């Protein structure tokens, strides 16, 4: 089982957008003073326009993996390439949406959406212009002059998403983006994200522990083992697009969910994880 995941669709000729080779990420455990391995030799090729989701037990290292791609966590070994260019540290070619919306509370929605662009040195007027497309797409128009505290959790997360998309990144990284939302809002947001991604065709890497969310949104689901994380399985989701939220009721969908679940469960039992 252990080893390099196969580029799943062998005859897919879209260019590889994000290439990860033998990635090892360790961190210093402050209590014991030892360096612990969070991600153990993970290799992954993600093609342009692909939506890939990583699932696994909580604490398995999938968020660390995503942070490493974002450049927020240093990796000890291996390499990360975006468009065949090695990346080290954060950059505008990747944008992250974290679980917490983390909007600047003193900035109105409009200026929060342009924040990423402003950080990259763009003039405000130009940033506004560039962001407006996504403001419309995520249906935030009319809210530009609200302060974040005036918005619901779901709306705040949409602003967060718009802020990331406005930067027009090569790869969009989603770190459990809906985990902090209530169940109903989460379902609605999943459907919206599904629609959105099919419209903009971005390359997306998402981390979640909601298996149904992973299956609904993804072209491929990568299953991580218990810590230290390596790739247990790489499962293709052949449900045709455009998809709608109600595919969750189909036989095919449920079968995919239970297949993934069995892999995770099997690993948890062996590793004594959880």
């Amino acid at each position, binding site marked *: 089982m252990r080893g390099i995941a196969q580029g799943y669709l062998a005859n897919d000729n879209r260019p590889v957008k994000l290439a990860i080779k033998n990635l090892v990420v360790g961190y210093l455990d402050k209590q014991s003073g030892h360096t612990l391995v969070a991600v153990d030799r993970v290799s992954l090729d993600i093609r342009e326009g692909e939506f890939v989701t990583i699932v696994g037990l909580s604490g398995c290292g999938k968020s660390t993996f995503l942070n490493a791609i*974002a*450049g*927020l966590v240093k990796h000890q070994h291996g390499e990360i390439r975006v468009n065949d260019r090695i990346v080290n*540290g*954060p*950059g*505008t070619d990747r*944008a*992250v949406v*974290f679980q*917490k919306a*983390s909007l*600047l*509370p*003193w*900035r109105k929605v409009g200026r929060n959406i342009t*924040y*990423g662009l*402003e*950080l*990259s040195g763009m003039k405000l007027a130009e940033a506004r212009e560039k962001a407006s497309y996504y403001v419309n797409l995520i*249906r935030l128009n*009319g809210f530009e002059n*609200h*302060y974040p*505290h*005036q*918005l*619901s959790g*779901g*709306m705040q997360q949409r602003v967060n998403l718009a802020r990331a998309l406005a*930067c027009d990144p090569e790869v969009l990284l989603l770190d459990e983006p809906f985990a902090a939302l209530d169940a109903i809002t989460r379902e609605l947001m999943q459907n919206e994200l599904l629609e959105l991604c099919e419209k903009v065709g971005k390359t997306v890497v998402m981390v979640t522990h909601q298996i149904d969310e992973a299956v609904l949104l993804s072209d491929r689901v990568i299953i991580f083992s218990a810590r230290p994380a390596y790739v247990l399985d790489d499962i293709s989701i052949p449900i045709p697009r455009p998809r709608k939220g109600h595919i969750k009721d189909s036989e095919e969908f449920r079968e995919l969910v239970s297949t993934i679940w069995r892999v995770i469960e099997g690993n948890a039992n062996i590793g004594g994880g959880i």
Partner: protein
Amino acid sequence: MRHLTVFPKSTVAKREKILNLLLGSSVIVLFLVGWELLFQLKIVNPLFISAPSRVVLAEIAMIKDGSLLKNLTVSAKEFLLGYGAAVLIGFPFGIILGWFKLVRGSFGPFIAALQATPRVALMPLFIIWFGLGITSKIVVVLMSAIFPLIVNLRVAMTTIDADLVHVARAYGASRWQIFHSIAFPTSLPFLMTGLRLAAGRGLLGVIVAEVFGGAEGIGYMIQYAGSTFQTDKVFAGVLVVAVSGITLDFSLDRLGRHFDRWRGEVPVH
């Protein structure tokens, strides 16, 4: 989901506000009436306590002969120069102290020791160093007003939301960008609190310095009136100081609310 409900200020809260205003002002009126009665009925030696009516008369007399304006101008000048210097030095220094660990480590204990020393106790030294004129008063105001600013801004830097910094870093922000897009806005409410505290301390500094040694200013006027048993003039001077203090605090509070709009519900100080 697409509609925003703005709750109107409830009428209950409005009524409570009016009631509080009525209660608060009636206590003041009662106090003034009682004071006037103590004087008029000669229950206490009138020389010691004066009376509201006499204070008003003294105030009018001081306005007419121009002594109030002259002394107020001197005090205001001392205050504004000292306070201005305190803001100009204290604001950036507090931020630097909170932002850079090394600076905090090196200057922290020194600042703490200086802060714990009552500045008034240093007054004789300031007079020796800067003379009896305006400079020594400015220094007292500066030394009184600067610490609330330094302390508040230092604290402000420790309240920076780590998640915001994390996001900014993910977008490739430099340390300077993190500073001016996150740390600086975070510091503003703390600056406003610092400004209010500093104004109170600075005002105290001006009066104490003038009472201690000087030949002009409101503090000197109070001190002189007191030593010549003109209690009405003492109260008149105190009234001027109190009104200045309240006006200053009110304006700074207003300014603070302006910077706090994004917080929504403005906390009552």
